[in-house]
């Protein structure tokens, strides 16, 4: 059984990863560390795991691996500390906010001989897995184009503070779909165009809508919307959708469209209650196995880097007004 720790609960996904660890037989939530002690202690109480205030003591406590869910810009320092302590690492997306940071994280893990994974749970979302399997069967023939979205609600807090997040919705909601495109098509993004801005909630200090265009190897053309455009009254948090145009047909996947529509008079707001499989279980289960087997997680640091490269290119394009090469 893999003894796993969580470093920082700044990113809300830490809570669902902690719950996944507790649900899985092959993993144990061994310890929690957070640079915000109050937040860490509350999470430790919630998930019945010990909180450790000292990072070095936490890393020396007998853990096999750590899941890092800090603010984006703090990923690198935590990965470096964990790698030097010989811990296997699963890092929340985006892996980093710069190519330099992402590369440094990959390098330190290679040097210290630990596995590094990027948390792209979409690869464990059943409808997306089924879509990939269908594409892999070959019956669609050549892929021509895709129109995608990763819309979301405004997350607030440090997500809108570029000093901690590195960017807004374009930073937050480009990497999932880039990773899915690379994974499904087996091709890299070569060029990026991006129009973005703070257009929905005035004065948040960062972009909350991005309209991106990619060119991929093989001449595949892609449109992608990365946004925090969902209103507070919208019945769910957001979406991941892909319309894939291919030689022999069209594949549409609306990844989280497994829901029951609920209309409750107390809430006075429609709610889409999801019933699909919990993708975090697949992600965390693979990480636990990677720790046990001393191998890289299935979704690697390199995968994280490739998505960071596209995001960095998107901001470069938004600034220059031109399509830029990755």
């Amino acid at each position, binding site marked *: 059984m893999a003894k796993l720790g969580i470093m920082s609960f700044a990113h809300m996904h830490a809570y669902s990863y902690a719950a996944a660890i507790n649900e899985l037989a092959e993993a144990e939530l061994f310890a929690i560390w957070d640079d915000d002690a109050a937040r860490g202690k509350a999470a430790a109480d919630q998930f019945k795991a010990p909180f450790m205030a000292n990072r070095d003591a936490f890393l020396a406590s007998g853990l096999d691996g750590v899941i890092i869910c800090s603010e984006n810009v703090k990923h690198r320092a935590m990965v470096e500390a964990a790698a030097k302590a010989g811990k296997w690492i699963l890092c929340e997306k985006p892996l980093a906010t710069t190519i330099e940071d992402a590369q440094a994280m990959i390098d330190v893990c290679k040097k210290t001989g630990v596995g590094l994974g990027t948390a792209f749970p979409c690869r464990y979302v059943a409808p997306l897995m089924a879509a990939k399997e269908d594409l892999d069967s070959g019956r669609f023939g050549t892929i021509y184009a895709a129109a995608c*979205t990763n819309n979301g609600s405004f997350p607030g807090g440090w997500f809108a503070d570029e000093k901690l997040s590195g960017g807004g919705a374009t930073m937050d909601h480009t990497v999932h779909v880039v990773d899915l495109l690379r994974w499904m098509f087996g091709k890299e993004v070569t060029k990026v165009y991006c*129009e973005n801005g703070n257009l929905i909630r*005035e004065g948040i200090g960062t972009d909350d809508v991005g309209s991106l265009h990619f060119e991929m190897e093989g001449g595949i053309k892609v449109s992608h919307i990365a946004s925090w455009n969902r209103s507070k009254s919208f019945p769910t948090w957001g979406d991941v959708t892909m319309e894939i145009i291919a030689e022999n047909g069209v594949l549409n996947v609306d990844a989280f469209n497994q829901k029951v529509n609920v209309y409750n008079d107390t809430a006075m707001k429609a709610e889409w209650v999801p019933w699909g499989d919990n993708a975090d279980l697949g992600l965390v289960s693979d990480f636990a196995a990677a720790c046990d087997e001393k191998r890289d997680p299935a979704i690697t640091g390199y995968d994280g880097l490739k998505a960071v490269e596209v995001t960095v290119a998107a901001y470069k394009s938004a600034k220059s007004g031109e399509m830029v090469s990755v």
Partner: protein
Amino acid sequence: MNVALIGCSGMGVHHAGHATKAGFKIVACGDAIKERAVELASQYGADATTDCLSLCKRDDVDVVAVLTPTPFHTEYVVAAAEAGKNIFCEKPFGRTLEQCNTGIAAAEKAGVKLFVGHVVRYFQEFETIKAQIDAGKVGKVGFVRTYRGGICPVGAGNWFRDWDMSGGVTMDTIIHDFDWIRYVFGDPAQVFSQNLREQFDKAIDYAMVTFRMKSGIIVNTIGTWAHPGGFRVKVEVCGDNGMLQFDSSEAPLSVMMRETASGMPGMIVPGSPVGVSPYELEWHDFKNWLDGKGRPRVTPQDGVWAVRMALAALESADTGKPVAFN
């Protein structure tokens, strides 16, 4: 008020019915293919001819309806104007800006009324969307996404699949959305676009367009002639106090036949019946103008602007660079 129809295939048949309902009388039908002209004319007790230019000169004709493939519009617009007839021209107004300007100049010089059939401005769902935006239901708009299309149309002599004639899904189909976007959100500042043109298959086009409006709003428009069947329209508008969505696939009526004339099982064709068709409404609006009652919702310059937007999108897709509107 007597109408001469030029172009008696798909749009000719369609408009003959709606113009008649709006109080016009079809007196002459012209088409390069004689059988087609005869067939349509016989339904309305009208004359048929292959000499379309002669129709423009008939004394008993008040209005010439130009319903030919796009590149031939201007020739008949000019002939009708020179004969002093008022003109109903199907969208796109022209295939090039030169054609558009020639048509406008001829109508102005002759002092005739010219109407361009941007029918989406008359669709009840689109008018409801506009009314909701105008009423402030979504607050200040920051992002818009539209989607339109289905199978690649065929048309007389397969002209839709001839890129130079039709301009693909961008010039022929999502020009509807371009016009509506400008109608509701004002003039665009620049456009970036990708499409499939003839990259893979002549019968498949798919366009992904991003407009930055002068107001700062980002608009993403997807157009498809890449689907094996069906037709779908979607709209999403996001603002600082809410959002709205429309999806034509959520229709009140749908049918699926066990067997069809072709021997193939029929696909589900969603229907959205209304008492007065938007096509009839545009003929009413045109008629009111002819009767000296008010101005129509679409001006000739709107028709030119829509072509400008489509041409700029095509140019961007060809060059890989954004194109600015001056």
